[in-house]
Each structure stands twice: as C-alpha cells, then as structure tokens.
C-alpha cells in the first residue's frame, strides 16, 4: 500500500479563453470592422508533481493565482485535468470519485446552501456519509460557538468557515483538504480553527492538506510544505529539513561557483558581495568556498517566509516578512 495520501505526476490543467479584439486606430477610432480572434491558454496547473505523505500536515503554499485552488478542484474531481496523473488515497479522482469523497473532506469555496441553517446542513450532510458522527457535529458546534439555528447566508464569514469545517470534520474523513481555511478570519477564530484541526484531526494520524498564503500559520502547524508558483511545484520538503538546511550565505571573492550546482538554490551579486541561498550541505559548500579563497561574511538561517520569497523569485524585493505573515 502506498504511503502517500495524495500523489500527482505531471498534472496539468489548462484553460482556453477566447479573445476578440477590435482593430483600433491611433486616434482611438475603430480602424477595421473586423475582429482579431485568438485563443489564450492559461496554464493554471502546469506539470505538478506532488507527494503528500499519509498522516502529515501538508502546507500547500503559493501566491494568489499560483494554482492552489485549481489543484484542489482537480483532486476533488470538480475539474478535469488536461494531462498528467493523480491519486488521492490510492484512487484516481477521475474514475473513483465517490470512494474518494466518502473518505475525504473537502472545504473549497466555503459556500454551502445559503437558505439552510446549520442544523439543516447537518441533517442534509448526514445522509451522504456512512461514517458521519452527530456527536462530533454537536461537539464542534459547541466548541467553535457556531449559531446553528441561523441561516448560512446570515452567518459571519468566520462562522461560515467554521460551519464548513464542522461538516468536513463530522463526516469522519481520513483526509481533510482545505483551501485557504483561514482567509478573512480574525486571529482568534484562526487560532480556534487551527487548534481544532491539529488537536482533534491531525493528532489522530489523519492527513491534513491545507493551502494558504498565510505563511506564519502554515509554519505553526505543518510538517511538510509544498510551494507552488505558476502551476509548478517549486519546492516540496519536510518543514524541519527546510528550516535545518536552507541558509543564506554572503561571500566576497573571485571565481565563485555559479548557480548550476544542485545544492545552491539561488545566487545574487551586488556591490562585490555574492549571496547564495543554499538548500543543503551548507558546511561542505562553505568549505569549498574557502578553499577557493573566498571570504564568507555570514551564514544565516532562513524562516519559511524568507524561503518562500526566494523560491517564488521575489526575494529581491525585500518585502518585510510580516506583510506576508
């Protein structure tokens, strides 16, 4: 049996959009009545190779529009892939959708049925899942302080999210896939949700996959991270390894190694100083630099926010990490 809860191989999802543009002259008048028509391909997911170990808390990180939600929709069988393969709990979402959905809780759009109250939604949802637990539903309604008699459309954003989570948790899923669960929530609610997810769900050996761009939250709960940008997974590693191995090394010297080596993630040169982002074996790399006559100015550890910025190629902008967190 596979040790992976989710696996994708070269997964692709391309959207085709049709553009019709009128020919406009420099004076702002329509030059030709004809339309210029062309198709544009948006590569929402572009050859994604992802491996989510069973029992892990996997933080799926990416900027807005990086392809996180599309990937989750593909895993849920809501969208059809353009190419590639994927497996959820060892099953193919295209052919085994129902067994996957029986064992997996998805929280994607955070929009349930607007006209139903929390209690109605529990009643509605109960019939779909063989392992549904009314006791768990009642417990989370109390713990998360959800007004279950109010219609979904009248609930606050925080309570709507909490209700979505309640339904996913009470279905007795082995795997929970959440798309930006804390987006738009205040810190108290965020803390409440993360506690429930980690203490009640993940600590029982079940797999939690959450996408987010709130790096501090992911850093707090996740043990694996995957960073996606422009539909490609740029980094996938155990978070402890990422923290332990990623180092920023600033060096002065001549004939320094180029970026092609596997262990060097990135190189930047400015004002005579070269900065390396080294992803593993930093000691060996420093020894090599010194043997070439270089002077190592400093070696500093990196937090997840800094690593994220370097990985998605925005490290030059020096965005304060607090902004992202």
């Amino acid at each position: 049996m596979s040790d992976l809860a989710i696996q994708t191989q070269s997964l692709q999802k391309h959207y085709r959009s049709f553009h019709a543009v009128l020919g406009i002259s420099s004076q702002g008048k329509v030059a030709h009545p004809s339309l210029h028509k062309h198709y544009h391909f948006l590569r929402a997911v572009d050859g994604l190779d992802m491996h989510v170990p069973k029992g892990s808390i996997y933080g799926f990180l990416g900027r807005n529009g990086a392809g996180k939600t599309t990937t989750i929709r593909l895993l849920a069988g809501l969208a059809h892939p353009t190419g590639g393969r994927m497996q959820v709990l060892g099953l193919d979402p295209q052919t085994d959708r129902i067994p996957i959905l029986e064992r997996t809780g998805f929280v994607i759009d955070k929009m349930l049925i607007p006209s139903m109250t929390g209690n109605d939604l529990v009643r509605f949802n109960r019939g779909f899942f063989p392992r549904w637990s009314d006791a768990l539903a009642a417990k989370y309604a109390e713990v998360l302080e959800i007004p279950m008699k109010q219609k979904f459309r009248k609930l606050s954003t925080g309570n709507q999210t909490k209700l979505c989570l309640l339904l996913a948790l009470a279905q007795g899923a082995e795997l929970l896939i959440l798309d930006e669960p804390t987006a738009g929530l205040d810190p108290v609610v965020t803390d409440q949700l993360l506690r429930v997810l980690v203490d009640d769900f993940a600590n029982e050996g079940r797999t939690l996959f959450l996408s987010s761009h709130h790096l501090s939250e992911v850093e707090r709960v996740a043990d694996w991270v995957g960073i996606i940008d422009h539909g490609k997974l740029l980094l996938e590693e155990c978070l402890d390894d990422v923290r332990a191995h990623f180092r920023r090394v600033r060096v002065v010297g001549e004939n320094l190694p180029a970026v092609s080596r596997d262990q060097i993630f990135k190189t930047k040169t400015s004002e005579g100083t070269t900065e390396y982002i080294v992803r593993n074996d930093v000691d060996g790399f420093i020894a090599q630099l010194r043997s070439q006559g270089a002077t190592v100015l400093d070696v500093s550890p990196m937090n997840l926010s800094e690593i994220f910025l370097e990985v998605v190629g925005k490290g030059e902008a020096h965005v304060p990490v607090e902004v992202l967190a």
Partner: protein
Amino acid sequence: MYLWKYWRDTRIIFSAAVLVIAALFIEILRERVGRVADAHQFANALPVFLLLQSLPLGFLGWFLGSFGIGRDLGEGSGSFLCSRPKNRSYFMWCSWACGLMQLLTIVALANMVLWFQIHRLLLSTGDASHGQISFPDGTSLSLISILCLTCAIVFLLVALVFTLTFSLTVVMKNVRGIIYGAGILVGYMILAARVTHYWHTVRLPNLAIQQFAYSKGQVAGIADHLGVSMAVRLAVILLFPFATQIVLEKMDI
C-alpha cells in the same frame, strides 16, 4: 437528502399552486349549476379548457424549472454539492424527477377540478349520453377518457417547458436559464408563425399537442396520430435531461 432539499426549495410554490386549485374547487362547489342547452357544447369547450390551464401551468413549469442543481451551481454551492459522494447525475435526476412529480400532481388536481365541473354540468343536462361527450363527427368519449387525455396533453406541454428551462439553467450554471428558456419558447412560436406565413403548406410542430381535430372551425374528434405526437413529445422531453447529464458530467465546477 437532495430530494429533501429540493422539496424545501419548492414547497412554497407547490403549496401555493395546490391552494389555488383548492380555492377554485371551493368556488365551483359554491356556484349554482346552470342548465346547458346542448351536450355538444362540451366538445367545443374542451380546447378552451385546455388553453385555460396550459397558460398558468406552463408558467409554473417554467418557474419550477429554474430550481435544482442549476440554481445551486449559480448560487455558488456547486463545489459543496459536487464534493458529496454522489454522482453529479444523481443531483440532476433527483431535482428533475421531483419537479416533474410536483407538476404532474398539480396538473392532475387541476384537471380533476375541471372534470368535476363538467360532470356537474353534464348531469344538469340530464346526462342523456350517459357520461359520454359526443363530437360533431359522431365520435364520443367518456368523461374519464377525456380527463386522462387532457391531463396527459397538458402535462407533456408543461413538462416540455419545465425540462427546457431546467436544462438551460444547468448548462448555463445560472438562474438566467429561465430567461433563455422563455426566449427559446417565444422564439420558436414566432418562427413557427413566420414559416407558416411565408410557406403556407409548411407547419412546424405545435408546442401544444392538437388533442382534437378541427373541421370547419368545429372540434370534430380525436386528432389523427395523437399517440405518435405524444410519443415524440415524450422522447424530446427525455432528450433534454440526458443531454444535460452529459454536459454536467463534463463540466468543470
């Protein structure tokens, strides 16, 4: 599960329709039955009865067609529903079948009320024809047969309107399907009228099945090929949900 949800969404419309029919029935009971001079008048009145109920019931079918999975997709609940462990077609067929059952109930109730009134009027004539309605061409049908026939004809029309709107609402993933549904129906009627205007011999199939044949402006009897017309209509009605199912299964939600 989903049937319960569909019932929750439509129960007010269904109950309102049943209440209107009940009010009509009470009104009929309160009315004193006048004397009808000639039992043949019933035959002439039948197409009028058909038209009278087709318009409000067609409107009801059009409105009910906008409920179900299409409306849910439009309201943004699609990803929630379609991540329940059921086939997408389950949600579609459930709402389609439940909507049709509601319409069938309403059509049957409305026709029973009309049948009751005709029965009373028939009795007032002395019922010389023993519960039979005679047509000028000599054919005669029992009141029960006419009730069943009218019920089936009206239901097929209402079901066609319902199914068209339902399918468009799903395909468009939006309640706007109700507008497109109406547009297509009106457009078809205009097209049929224009075709007949320019090519006198060409007639596009009528939306409402011609239940009775007309001769010199009079209702002559049961139309030829009525069974064929009904079978074709039924096939068209079933074609829509099957096509919608294919679209829904291939759709990205």
